[in-house]
């Protein structure tokens, strides 16, 4: 009895394993690049890691279909290589001769992709499901482009500077007008080449700073 049961199980397993081949249309090829991703902290790929993978995938199927019948045994793996790449197919839990459709598996994987990646400390690029394109994250685009903010700051500062300059030049002549008058009278230096006379103080006519008009 026990022998017959074992034979039956064995046959089922063999049959099931036949479902996982290279050319199956319902399966996916998976490729892991552990050493590239983790370098020194890379773990060795072994049976336990494979078990984790199958368990994670079963988890993904459960999440997507909300069907708790998926198990590690529903995930079949074959064609393992040194690269760490293999094929997998998903058995229908209710009927172990049927495979789950490719599109359904893809949907399940995409939904839980992040969890699958995290389980292996990898990313979309290093844990590749060939034929399932990674869902790209929406890039963060702020409401105001950042360059406009920087531009606004600079032109605001420049305008503030111009206003300050204008105000000071407008206020300036009022304060400085007295000084200017004094300069014009007291100096007469170089303003017109004519020597200053009838003015307060001594003026040095030889100290002309406009040489153009001094002729020989």
């Amino acid at each position, binding site marked *: 009895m026990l022998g017959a049961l074992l034979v039956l199980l064995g046959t089922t397993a063999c049959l099931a394993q036949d479902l996982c081949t290279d050319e199956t249309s319902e399966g996916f090829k998976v490729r892991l690049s552990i*050493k590239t991703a983790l370098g020194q902290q890379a773990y060795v790929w072994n049976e336990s890691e494979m078990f984790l993978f199958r368990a994670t995938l079963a988890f993904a199927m459960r999440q997507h279909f909300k069907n708790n019948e998926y198990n590690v045994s529903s995930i079949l793996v074959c064609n393992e290589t040194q690269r*760490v790449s293999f094929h997998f197919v998903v058995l229908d839990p209710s009927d172990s001769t049927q495979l789950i459709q490719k599109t359904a598996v893809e949907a399940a994987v995409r939904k839980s992709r992040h969890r699958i990646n995290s389980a292996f400390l990898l990313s979309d690029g290093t844990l590749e499901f060939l034929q399932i394109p990674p869902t790209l994250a929406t890039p963060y685009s702020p409401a105001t482009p950042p*360059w406009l903010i*920087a531009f606004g700051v600079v032109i605001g500062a*420049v305008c503030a*500077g111009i206003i300050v300059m204008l105000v000071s030049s407008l206020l300036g002549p009022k304060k400085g007008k007295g000084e200017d008058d004094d300069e014009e009278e007291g100096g007469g230096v170089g303003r017109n080449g004519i020597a200053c006379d009838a003015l307060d103080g001594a003026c040095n006519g030889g100290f002309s700073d406009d040489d*153009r008009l001094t*002729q020989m």
Partner: protein
Amino acid sequence: MEKDARPNWENPMQFVLACVSYAVGLGNVWRFPYLCQMHGGGGFLIPYLIMLVLEGVPLFYMELAIGQKMRLGSIGAWSAISPYLGGIGLASVLTSLYLCLYYNILNAWSFWYLFNSFQSVLPWAECPLNANMTGPDEECERATPTQYFFYRQTLNISSSIDETGGMHLGQVLCLLLAWVFTFLFTLRGVKSTGKVVYFTATFPYVVLFIYLIRGLTLHGSANGIKFMFTPKMEQLADPRTWVNAATQIFYSLGLGFGSLIAFASYNEYNNNFERQAIVVSMINSGTSIFACIVTFAIYGFKATVNYESCLERTRMLLLNTFDMAEELITQDNVGGWLETLNSTHPEQFAGLSGVLEECDLEAELGNAVEGAGLAFIVYSEGIKNMPLPQLWSVLYFFMLLTIGMGSMLGNVTAIITPLRDFKVVSRNISIEALSALVCVFCLLMGLSFTTRQGNYWFTMFNDYAAGFSLFFIVLVEVVVVSYVYGITRFEKDVEDMLGRKPSWLWKVLLVAVSPALLLCLFIFYIVGYIQGGTPTYKAWDKDLGRSVVMEYPVYGQVFIGLLLVSTISCIPLSALYTYCRRKARPATPEPSQIALREPDAWVVPPSEHCSQE
């Protein structure tokens, strides 16, 4: 009756810094490294330094002497030398005007890149996603993210000069900002310019030094430096090397624009311009070489990064195709494995031939780029790979900005100074209003460069507006000074200013060597233009993701012709005009043909100069 004496630099240091700031321009950063790379690395320094001595320094000396002696801008100075030759000054002003129109676009780009550096991820580091979020944008995929950012997001360039489009808002705003700054810096003439140049002349060196340290400590920079310093002496036999060296010295010093004459006209009469001419020329060339070292360190880094990512891609391709364990192939033995796999699995390997890339470090290093391409595309590519790229980006583009602004100061001064020499202008328009007028005019005209096809017009101006005509202008200048004005009179003027005669070396260089060199260059370029056929430009093809060469349409060629002819013809036309005026009014005395302030050339300076500081 003079209302106010000619303004002066506060001290000679301001003048030297102004000349340095003007001469050290974007060409030092992006043209010289390119030439160095094209013409055999370290070996290029030989023709470069020879041309500096034979051509650069004497012509620089001549322009400073003229400006300091005549104390007028280019139009007035040349009219004072001979009333028929005011056209030289006019040609200089016109060339400066063309330069002002397009040069500030470079500053606008620098502002744009600077403002875009304040983001956590630099926008030229990654490709943006396409419309349906499934992958990167197609144009970006075909090109590189840095090229995409420059051609699409900065310029939004069209596919040819014929295809028109609207203006780019970011460019317009940045151009406006650039002109606002230019206006503020040249507002009060030398009073404001003199203060600004303390910063614009010195800050670039600070940044270059920081970049030198950063560059030399980058992984792979040694490859670039080694590449630069291995001289390829056979390049010296190529005449183009010598022509390019002469041309580079010529443009780098900014001869012929009238800026040097304008700056020197604000000098004290006895300023020692001879020593300053040598100092500024040396600083300019030294900066070129310094910038070259920095550029090649960055080049080496960029080339190494690209080479290593190429190796990595090849490695992954081999691993994935042949399903081998990851640790078997490393970046070092990729080459070995390629050969092994080719012999063991030839059919599978043949299937890869379409996808497999050639990884060649020499080819990456030899990828010479010049002009805006180098500064904005190649450098930003190098920067994005550095740790803390935002800091390096801000520093770099701020440096480009100070360099560019420093050169703009000279360009605008070259226009304003001769205009202010006309009594009718200086009496009725204040210097602030004149600066504002020039800046607003150039801004409005410059807006056309911010359109989608604007970059092609920019390239046209860059190649033709201030190129070949400068040779003509400076050739006429040196011939006039040596032969028409007379080298003996020039010698006397210099003796008057400096207190000693110029040595025979200066005289030989000015009378014989420089004119001969310039004449050779001039003929070489004319022959080149005639033989070159239709002028072409590089258009960005967004489907191919790279630039393609296209011919200018007819109206483009006509415009190029206009650009060249308009500046060159100023000289003969102005001479003709003066001749006709003289014939019409024979009674008027010579000096007042053009109503200028009396030039000092006709007045023997008094001995009071000795009593001044």
